[in-house]
């Protein structure tokens, strides 16, 4: 009886070991793909140039120990490219740590993003929390950066997008799952932060590419990026420059949160943007008085109103909707979804925008 039980157990164990899902592969026999880029291929008959950035682990991590190799392949499909790349390296590719996907600007302009992203979303071992960005001048050159301040390859991108290291309102981070959602969702358009190589192994991330469902339509400059970000992430450490007489003063906001409402006012659809800003004055060209904080608040509100209006009008003209007005409209209007959507598409170019900013300054930034 006892022997039989042991035998059953042994058989189960043996059978189970054959099932072992992802298989035993030691960590030093794996190549971690930390970043990946897709560019249009230079060859006539191929569609993409796929590049993977493989981290070379170093036993002692220190600044500048960001060793990596880049492997590229021209193919028609990304899956195929990765298979061929596997044959070019000596270790198993591990996509579990792929955290940055850089798409070359040219490809973003060319369009067909849905097809490009399909492999990334479908592939089971790529985490959906990978960051997506557009690379300028192209994806591969963004991958091929070796900043001396990095401890790991591509860590600079992770730190910037994850807001683990630098915290700034100029960086918009876009997750893979969100990008995919925006590609599919009616009434919410995709965005891609632009990573620019600026020489000396450094990058600048302060612009955003706005896409329709297919390709790039608009690039926001840093100031507009900041405004957009307040509706997107609601990030702190925000600076706003306000013109005042001949000079200016700058508000450093701890918290900026934008919200909006869609209303029907006398037969017209009106979208009211309501940015809430709490902060202190950080820099000023002329003397600032504590008793006149209310006055500065009004000035700031006036200025913000103008800028925000300008910003949304640009979106309206380009007929893109990264903030999600359409989605809100769809959510609040019952009926056949297709009809509602059709109605919104007709409405959007005619929508009237209003801005009601609320600024609260708590201090002049000075003692006394």
């Amino acid at each position: 009886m006892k022997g039989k039980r042991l035998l059953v157990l042994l058989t189960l164990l043996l059978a189970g070991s054959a099932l072992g899902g992802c298989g035993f592969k030691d960590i030093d026999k794996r190549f971690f793909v930390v970043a990946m880029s897709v560019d249009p291929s230079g060859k006539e008959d191929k569609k993409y140039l796929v590049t993977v950035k493989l981290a070379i682990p170093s036993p002692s991590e220190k600044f500048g120990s960001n060793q990596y190799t880049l492997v590229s392949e021209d193919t028609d499909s990304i899956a195929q490219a990765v298979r061929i790349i596997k044959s070019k390296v000596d270790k198993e590719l591990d996509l579990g740590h792929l955290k940055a996907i850089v798409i070359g600007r040219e490809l973003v302009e060319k369009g067909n993003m849905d097809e490009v992203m399909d492999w990334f979303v479908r592939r089971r071992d790529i985490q959906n929390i990978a960051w997506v960005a557009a690379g300028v001048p192209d994806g591969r050159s963004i991958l091929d950066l070796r900043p001396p301040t990095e401890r790991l390859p591509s860590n600079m991108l992770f730190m910037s997008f994850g807001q683990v290291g630098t915290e700034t309102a100029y960086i918009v981070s876009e997750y893979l799952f969100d990008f995919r959602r925006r590609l599919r969702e009616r009434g919410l358009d995709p965005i891609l932060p632009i990573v620019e190589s600026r020489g000396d192994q450094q990058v600048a991330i302060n612009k955003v590419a706005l896409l329709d469902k297919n390709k790039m339509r608009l690039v926001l400059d840093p100031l507009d990026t900041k405004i957009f970000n307040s509706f997107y992430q609601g990030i702190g450490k925000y600076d706003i420059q306000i013109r005042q007489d001949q000079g200016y003063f700058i508000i450093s906001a701890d918290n900026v949160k934008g919200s909006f409402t869609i209303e029907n006012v006398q037969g017209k659809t009106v979208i009211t943007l309501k940015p809430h800003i709490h902060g202190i004055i950080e820099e000023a060209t002329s003397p600032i008085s504590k008793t006149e904080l209310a006055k500065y608040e009004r000035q700031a509100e006036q200025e913000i109103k103008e800028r925000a209006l300008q910003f949304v009008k640009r979106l309206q003209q380009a007929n893109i909707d990264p903030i999600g007005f359409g989605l809100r409209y769809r959510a609040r209007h019952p009926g056949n979804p297709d009809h509602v959507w059709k109605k919104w598409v007709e409405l959007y170019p005619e929508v009237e925008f209003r801005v009601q900013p609320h600024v609260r300054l708590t201090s002049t930034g000075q003692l006394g």
Partner: protein
Amino acid sequence: MAESSDFVIRQLDHHDTTVHLFYLKSICDDLKIQRDLVLPLYQADRAESYENYVRSLINQKTSSSPGQLLERVIKGEAIVCIEDTFIANVPMKKPLNSSPGPAEVEVSVVGPKHAFSEELDTNMNVIRSRYTESSLTVERANLESHPKTEIAIFYDRELVDPEVLEGIKKDLKRISDHIVIQAAGQLQRKMSPARRTLFPTVMITERPDRVVLNLSQGKVAILVQGTPFGIVAPAVFYDFMTAMDDVYSHYWTSRFLLVLRYIGLFFNLTMASFYVGLTSYNPEFLRVQLALSIAGSRAPVPYPSFIEVLFMLLMMELLTEASIRLPRTIGSTATTVGGLILGTAATQAGLVSNIMIIIVACVAISNFVLPINEMMFSMRVMKYVFLGITTIFGIMGLVIAFIGLIVHLTRKQNYGRAYLRFFAENGKVVPRKEAG
């Protein structure tokens, strides 16, 4: 019996009375015999008055059959024969190791400092003086071993669950062995209905305060002659996680220490398995920084991760075993040589990775956090089961092994008590420790 050189037959003549004394010189107190048995004879004026005197001696029991007398002699009693008509046996045993030593295995910071002694009578004294209730009952019995071992069963008549008591007595009666039983651990093994269980169902303790606390909770304690350790039954999983200091210190500190022990238990069981599972199956579980640093430190290691882990764990076990058996003066040298030098050298030689050393140290240290020895040993073995399953099935295997362990523990019965239960216990269950 007469063949033994320590067997003494003394003949005493006074007036016209002849008295014979039989005893074993080796275990009897000569001075006491002289004082209590010999001197009174010469002071007595008649044979009857001496006979009456002997009768008055405490603990005196009159037995008649030769077999019983022989047993008495072996137990350290002197037989007094007056004129072949009156026979009495008087306890004259010279006690050995009767003073309780300091507690060494279960050290308490602020609790009582002394452990049990190796003498059953002294231990009974210790318990009686700590547990001053008339309901405390002591039953002395002999185990059916060869030679017979004397034990004492303690319980509080009013608190004990009769079913549990009955079960324990039945288990004790069941024991029949050709080998002598000399330690509480041995008795526990013989008592346990499941011969090959990994988890202890009774608790072995050297602390009188723990025994008394458990008695007051309605448990049964068994003390064995010749060992300073007692058995407390029935014990459930939680009992093995408590130290006596939990009762003695502040509420929040004791809670903190309790949580710490569970964390230690978890680390001890799973750290090695996590290493194998994470480095060989699911590195995406780690942060990329750590993944790369492990990969980097594993680069010179030629063997798969589980061999690396097994090698290092084996080293650690050897070290632990060696330092237990070695005399204290050499012990510290062994740990230094083993722990520090071997660890560093193994990494430099490229046999194990740096991270591995940290993990092994963590496993080794977290094991010692568990306050009761038996549970410590069980968990030491258990982690290899976890490691084996993880090596084959990865992190999923580890999760399933953990669930399996909990299922096994909850299913386990101990004198009608569930070994591990997560929520409030019902009224029939022996009340658990109330801290504070």
